């Protein structure tokens, strides 16, 4: 760990070990469930065992009389208190200009449950055991209704409606792109390649289950909520303004150490509002911690779309036009960002890294009797990348072309590039990352490896995906036009203390990403102070000016840029102070990483000396500037960032059992400028494992008839394990982001975006000699075995 004060080799780029890991690996992290407030009570939720039912009556008398019970509350109590519903953060309009159907989302349901796990009542008691005991005594009289548990069921003729106001269960029917141009492309195409793919529904499974601890302080009429959140300020805004009607200055939201989110902890959940509201009701702090089975049925799920695509291609493999019909499952309610995922975060990526001149995408979103679906690592971009990369492979096959050749034929090579689906890519070099993947992955040695596998009775396949994604979300004005109900800037404060050490306050939230290290490196490098003299503070609305939080791989490119802006203001103010101290004109003072130097002389003042003068302003330009050295900046990005790359995967398939093993995985990514390569590797590895999880193991399954969640535990929901994955080979090739001061693009999601299509393309390549042409995720052993058996029968 060498602090480096030279401008030419700043800390950016150093692979420093993560400083936060000391407390995590020694069990000293402090999570919401670790917090114990005096007189704390415990909440247990009564959840619906049915996917769809009307509530005839709820009897709480026995439960209320149970030992240790402080209160039992239902939707009736919520309605009586005129508590608002959980808001949706994004408005999508249908093709005809009408707003999406936006049903109410009450904190406790009043008269109808719409998915298994829906919150029906809450019991607050002296202990968790007492609350659980009493929760079993709450009697709910249900009148069971038919349930629609899948997209197909929801759209079938005469289907039961989840919401009376949503005809045929349609939430919205949206489109993007030039339909006429695409139609013309199809007409003049040499060939139209058709493919339908399904995105398996995923359960995020953060290692720390969600938890919330609400505390109403009656003496000061002030609320505090400790919660497992990726964005405490957003929760404060939504809960204060839309649900509980608390003035924002009377509500503090703290998200302390949080054990993973992957998107599932972005959203404002009912339980957060319930414990805050119930705390006032019972006059005690109230804590709720999810059981693992509750996590399965109440955390927002991810993906769950069915896409049908037509790609018009010319004889030589040039893409002429693309048409996509996407059906997206919203679940029973609209989660915070749910409607934006299949639309603005997926349809807009349908150009991929190709010059397809005409693109048209339709998205029909439907309600079902399942838990809400929202962003999960990648959020919309994995869906786009998977469709495109499967489709490109299929086009190559139908044209008899090499899979890499067809990609290179269509790569975008001139930047900035405006796509037909609303985005403008600033920089990129798709050939470079493809070449890198081929060399790191020893593509030339593949044929020999395939023969070696064959000699062991295994079928080997190789697959590629050359993807691009959009992250670093997002310009506020743009997303506002697109229906976002929030801005997507980030805020930061840099406080230089009198002795020259620095505290950094960021609106980004770290729940595994390593901000305490990366952000300290960034500021230490920028201000020329030792790494150990910079601390990073996050996750508390009382300490941080504001923040939009962490998701969409935005922390470094947006949150980091806000920090750089704040640090620049420190330097600017420091110059004025230094000029005064050195008795020269401000224009003669040069900043040289940690020092203010007088041009052409040996005279200088360190940042520490300037800071001391700012706090002890005896000799100070008090007529020009205020004492103190602390600056806040809000950074609103000018554009999305566009990480891209090539993932290469090799699999071995056991033709007898259908078992697929990933034996080689190469990720060659362009994530822009890298602040900490160790953190980048870690982010990539995690994303790749989750990508393999989606491709091979994970799927949330609801029973078609009853709407019961069949994969409600680790007994039958397949999480990827360390033993399931090979030692990854990762490489990076940076093109610098053109519009943020760091040049970074983002790395949090690329693993989960680029990997699944590479895995599936590899499996299909392995099985191609047997005549298998299609396979859906997850490629479970039985599914692969059946595909092999069916292909054999057909031949």
């Amino acid at each position, binding site marked *: 760990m060498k602090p480096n004060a030279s401008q030419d080799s700043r800390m950016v780029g150093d692979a420093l070990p993560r400083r936060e890991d000391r407390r995590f690996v020694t069990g000293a992290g402090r999570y919401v469930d670790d917090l114990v407030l005096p007189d704390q009570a415990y909440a247990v939720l009564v959840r619906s065992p049915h996917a769809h039912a009307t509530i005839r009556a709820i009897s709480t008398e026995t439960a209320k009389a149970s030992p240790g019970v402080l209160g039992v509350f239902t939707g009736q109590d919520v309605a009586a208190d005129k508590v608002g519903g959980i808001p949706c953060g994004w408005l999508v309009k249908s093709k005809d200009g009408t707003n999406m159907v936006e049903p109410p989302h009450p904190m406790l349901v009043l008269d109808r449950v719409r998915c298994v796990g829906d919150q029906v009542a809450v019991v607050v008691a002296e202990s968790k055991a007492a609350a659980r005991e009493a929760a079993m005594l709450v009697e709910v009289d249900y009148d069971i209704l038919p349930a629609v548990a899948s997209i197909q069921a929801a759209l079938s003729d005469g289907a039961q409606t989840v919401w009376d106001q949503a005809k045929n269960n349609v939430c919205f029917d949206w489109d993007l792109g030039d339909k006429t141009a695409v139609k013309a492309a199809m007409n003049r195409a040499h060939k139209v390649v058709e493919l339908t793919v399904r995105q398996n529904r995923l359960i995020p499974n953060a290692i720390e289950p969600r938890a919330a601890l609400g505390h109403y302080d009656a003496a000061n009429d002030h609320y505090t909520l400790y919660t497992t959140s990726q964005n405490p300020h957003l929760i404060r805004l939504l809960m204060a303004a839309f649900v509980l009607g608390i003035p924002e200055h009377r509500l503090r939201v703290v998200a302390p150490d949080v054990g993973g989110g992957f998107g599932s902890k972005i959203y404002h959940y009912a339980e957060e509002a319930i414990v805050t509201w119930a705390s006032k009701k019972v006059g005690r702090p109230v804590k709720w911690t999810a059981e693992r089975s509750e996590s399965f049925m109440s955390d927002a799920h991810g993906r769950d779309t069915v896409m049908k695509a037509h790609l018009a291609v010319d004889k030589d493999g040039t893409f002429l036009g693309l048409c996509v019909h996407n059906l997206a499952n919203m679940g029973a309610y609209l989660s915070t960002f749910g409607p934006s995922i299949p639309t603005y975060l997926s349809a807009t990526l349908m150009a991929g890294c190709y010059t397809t001149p005409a693109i048209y995408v339709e998205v029909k979103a439907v309600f079902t009797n399942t838990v809400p679906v929202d962003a999960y690592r990648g959020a919309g971009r994995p869906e786009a990348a998977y469709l495109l990369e499967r489709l490109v492979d299929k086009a190559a096959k139908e044209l008899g072309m090499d899979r890499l050749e067809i990609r290179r034929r269509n790569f975008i090579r001139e930047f900035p590039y405006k796509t037909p689906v609303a985005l403008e890519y600033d920089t990129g070099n798709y050939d470079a990352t493809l070449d890198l993947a081929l060399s790191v992955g020893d593509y030339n040695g593949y044929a020999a490896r395939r023969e070696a596998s064959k000699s062991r009775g295994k079928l080997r396949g190789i697959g590629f995906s050359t993807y691009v994604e959009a992250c670093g979300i997002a310009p506020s004005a743009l997303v506002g036009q697109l229906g976002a109900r929030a801005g997507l800037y980030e805020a930061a404060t840099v406080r230089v203390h009198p002795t020259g050490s620095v505290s950094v306050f960021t609106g980004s939230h770290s729940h595994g990403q390593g901000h305490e290290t990366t952000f300290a490196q960034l500021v230490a490098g920028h201000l020329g102070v030792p790494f150990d003299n910079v601390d990073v503070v996050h996750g508390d609305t009382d300490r941080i000016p504001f923040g939009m939080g962490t998701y969409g791989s935005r922390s470094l490119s947006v949150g980091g840029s806000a920090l750089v802006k704040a640090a620049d203001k420190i330097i600017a103010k420091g110059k004025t102070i230094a000029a005064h101290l050195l008795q020269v004109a401000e224009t003669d003072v040069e900043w040289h990483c940690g020092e203010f130097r007088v041009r052409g002389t040996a005279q200088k003042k360190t940042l520490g000396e300037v800071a001391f003068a700012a706090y002890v302003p005896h000799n100070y330009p008090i007529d020009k500037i205020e004492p103190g050295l602390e600056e806040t900046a809000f950074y609103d990005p000018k554009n999305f960032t566009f990480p891209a790359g090539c993932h290469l995967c090799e699999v071995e398939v056991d033709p007898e059992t259908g078992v697929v093993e990933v034996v080689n995985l190469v990720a060659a990514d362009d994530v822009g400028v890298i602040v900490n390569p160790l953190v980048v590797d870690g982010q990539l590895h995690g994303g790749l494992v989750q990508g393999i999880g989606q491709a091979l193991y994970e799927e949330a399954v609801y029973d078609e008839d009853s709407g019961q969640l069949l994969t409600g535990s680790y007994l039958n929901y397949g999480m990827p394990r360390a033993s399931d994955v090979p030692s990854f080979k990762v490489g990076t090739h940076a093109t610098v982001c053109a519009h943020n001061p760091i040049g970074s693009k983002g790395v949090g999601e690329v693993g989960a975006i680029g990997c699944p299509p590479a895995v599936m393309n590899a499996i299909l390549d392995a099985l191609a000699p047997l005549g298998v042409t299609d396979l859906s995720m997850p490629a*479970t052993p039985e599914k692969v075995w059946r595909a092999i058996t069916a292909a054999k029968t057909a031949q």
Partner: protein
Amino acid sequence: MRDFQFHRPSTVAEAKKLLGQCEAAKLLSGGQSLLPVLKLDMAQPSDLISLSGIASLRGIRFDGNRVEIGAGVTHAEVAASMDLQKRVPSLTKLADGIADPQVRNRGTLGGSLAHADPAADYPAAVLALSATIKTDRRTIAADDFFVGIFETALASDEIIESCCFQIPRRAAYAKFASHASRYAVVGVMVAQFADGVRVGVTGAGPSVFRWKEAEAALSNRFAPDAINALCYHPDDLTSSLEASAEYRAHLVKAMTQRAVTNALQQGGLS
């Protein structure tokens, strides 16, 4: 999980006595199946009687062509036993493939047999290695022990003391594990003795069973292709989200052939 009384007797007799005295007691061995059930409130025993303090339930003893393993011996202890690795490597390999290290460090042979999970690994070995189960009152032959899904021939107050396996000439266990749970979707133990071959199949059906047709074919000629002409019929097999009956039937044969191949690779041991 509800409150319960906890007991830790030091003899089987004492455990038996407690079992008779308590209102709704459960015997606790490694707890790897019982504790999850308690946590989900699916069982609410008044008392838990831990068998972990009973010295007579420990130990691995060889006696001629048999090995007796105490009911309280953990999977990890079986897997690590050098004597077993020399004389019945199929059994140590089986134990080493149960669940994960945490489960293997706590879970016991007796607990697994008494629980009789249809996807547990040990039952396949009990059948294939023609074991006898010794309890506080009698000895039960392997073929009579497993009755149905989570059901054994044990009386409700009967305590397993040990399990005695016949040492085969050669044997192997081939397991197709569930990716999610690591339980056997299909697990097949094939064991060759001087007087014939036994094939125990776990995971595939509601209870562990022997595949008699394969036993006959393999007794005739111990080679993987000896059962090429056979097909296990899916009718009685389990169909679940994890695997259909057809796929399990396919795996019964495939795992049997792999077990034979592995057994042959190990060479004869007697």
